[in-house]
């Protein structure tokens, strides 16, 4: 025990009480180093990492960020959002609009300004809300603003009216569903049910180039680590303690003088922005975004990842997202017809047998941070 303690004291303060987080940072750093090396191996080598696997890993990491965002509000504030796919998709669409503008004259119709689907719809000019998306910086601002402002407006209305519990879950689900229906419409100007695809360049370099794909992957690793650091710092602050207090006794917190609604609102906004950034990293890696991303089932799957990994730990959400998605890839390939049953069974079993999720399996003494953060079992 004493060796452990002395090692712990040499760590930076942010890591000292956070064994789970330290493991996460270590694994992410190892991934950022190992993956470029493995892809550089000749394709005859058994350790070669194919572009397909690289894309898959990048996708999983984006999902892990989304799970982290959901855990921050669900695990720590008790707000079960069934609409986080909406924020993820909005970030994805903002990035997609930039990528569409980069196609230029290389589209099927060769119009220098209008994306193909607009030419197809006989539109003569770019709609006003597409202005600025030819600039990368502008698109990045919108990646943050679009989900952030939606969360701000939605959260302000919902929390101020004291909508809580299952009712809040239902309206978040309705929000995502309504957006899906809206984005399916051709005259919305977002490509209807086809969405955006056939991207060519990002920042002047071809998306298909191995170097670009690797840069996007590493950017995702960094973004996930940064999201973890940000949410953990927020939740460890005194404001984070208020947030957990709201989860465990909302009206009590109000009688202590805390404006409960504004805590929920800002946490919700932070969570939505993280989800949006995840979506923005997801789109160039998978090469497509369409309204199907808003589908209610997507938001529900995120909740399952978090529950499986263990909510209220952040790193548990990351682990859950990676494991469940790996299982999904495996099962949809090996036994496509059982996947949905397996997912449902997994959720039920975890809820019944592992209320703290997979991270709840490790001996309590490994993670003194759990006690300090006061994590509540699911």
């Amino acid at each position, binding site marked *: 025990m004493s060796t452990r303690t002395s090692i712990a004291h040499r760590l930076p303060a942010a890591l000292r009480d956070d064994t789970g987080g330290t493991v996460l940072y270590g694994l992410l750093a190892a991934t950022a180093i190992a993956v470029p090396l493995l892809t550089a191996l000749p394709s005859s080598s058994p350790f070669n990492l194919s572009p397909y696997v690289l894309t898959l890993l990048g996708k999983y990491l984006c999902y892990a960020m989304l799970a982290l965002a959901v855990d921050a509000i669900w695990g720590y504030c008790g707000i079960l959002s069934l609409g986080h796919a909406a924020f993820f998709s909005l970030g994805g669409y903002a990035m997609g609009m930039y990528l569409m503008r980069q196609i230029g004259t290389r589209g099927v119709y060769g119009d220098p300004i209008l994306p193909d689907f607009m030419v197809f719809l006989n539109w003569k000019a770019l709609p006003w809300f597409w202005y600025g998306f030819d600039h990368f910086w502008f698109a990045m601002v919108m990646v943050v603003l679009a989900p952030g402002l939606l969360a701000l407006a939605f959260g302000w209305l919902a929390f101020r009216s004291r909508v809580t519990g299952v009712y809040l879950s239902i309206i978040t689900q309705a929000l995502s569903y309504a957006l899906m229906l809206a984005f399916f419409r051709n005259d919305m100007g977002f490509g209807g049910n086809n969405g955006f695809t056939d991207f060519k360049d990002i920042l002047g370099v071809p998306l298909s180039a191995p170097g670009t794909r690797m840069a996007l992957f590493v950017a995702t690793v960094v973004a996930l680590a940064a999201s973890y650091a940000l949410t953990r710092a927020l939740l460890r602050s*005194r404001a984070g*303690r208020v947030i957990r*207090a709201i989860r465990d006794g909302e009206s009590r917190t109000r009688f202590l*003088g*805390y404006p409960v609604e504004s805590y929920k609102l800002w946490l919700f906004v932070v969570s939505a922005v993280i989800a949006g950034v995840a979506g923005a990293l997801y789109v160039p890696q998978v090469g497509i975004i369409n309204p199907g991303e808003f589908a209610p089932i997507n938001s529900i799957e995120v909740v399952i990842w978090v529950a499986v990994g263990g909510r209220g730990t952040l790193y548990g959400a990351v682990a859950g997202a990676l494991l469940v998605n790996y299982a999904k890839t495996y099962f949809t390939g090996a036994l496509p017809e059982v996947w949905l049953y397996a997912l449902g069974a997994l959720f039920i079993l975890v809820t019944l047998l592992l209320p703290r999720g997979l991270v709840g399996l490790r001996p309590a003494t490994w993670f003194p941070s759990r006690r300090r953060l*006061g994590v509540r079992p699911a």
Partner: protein
Amino acid sequence: MTLAPDVLYLEKLTVSFDGFKALNALTLYVEPGELRCIIGPNGAGKTTMMDVITGKTRPDEGRARFGHQLDLLTMSEPEIARAGIGRKFQKPTVFEYLTVAENLELALAGPRGFWRVLRARLTPAGRDRMDSVLATTGLADRRDEIAGALGHGHKQWLEIGMLLMQDPKLLLVDEPVAGMTPQETERTAELLVSLAGAHSVVVVEHDMEFVRSIARNVTVLHEGSVLAEGTMDQVQNDQNVIDVYLGA
């Protein structure tokens, strides 16, 4: 009656739920530093009265003021709490997944807005205050325990400790000794008596022995209005009180 600072004025408060009058033209004043016990049978309106004072329930009629300026009926729950009215619930409601020290830290008087609390640290003054409250409530050796692991009596004291950290001008305490052992009850009585003077304290309680041990002023509520007011001896000998409550 002229308005003095830090006096609680409740005048002609009426609250009805589907025709049932939980409060019926209730009029009550609590002086600064006073320790007031409110007794009455179930449904007399004790908890509803606390709900009105703390902003949880809005009355149909009447006035509720605190001191010169504060009209409690126009303020939200957090605003009323920040103005110096603290409440202890009937069921101990501490934050079960935070430590004793964290519970007290959250209650500590200070910033309440998100952005300021985000950067807030426990100041040396705040730490001293916490140490003194831990000593007062006898929780000093349990400061790093998860509050959910405390026994019932300790939870009650922790909640009273949270009220002390808040440093309210007026404490509303709902059934503090329900479920306590005789020793715990005795300690709680000492604690409440020591608080009066520096704070106004309003205690709602069923336990007559307990009320007798702490109260100088007792108000008896019945069907939403005041039935009798005075010392314990006076109200116990009041014929109305004997008829509706004590005697039967």
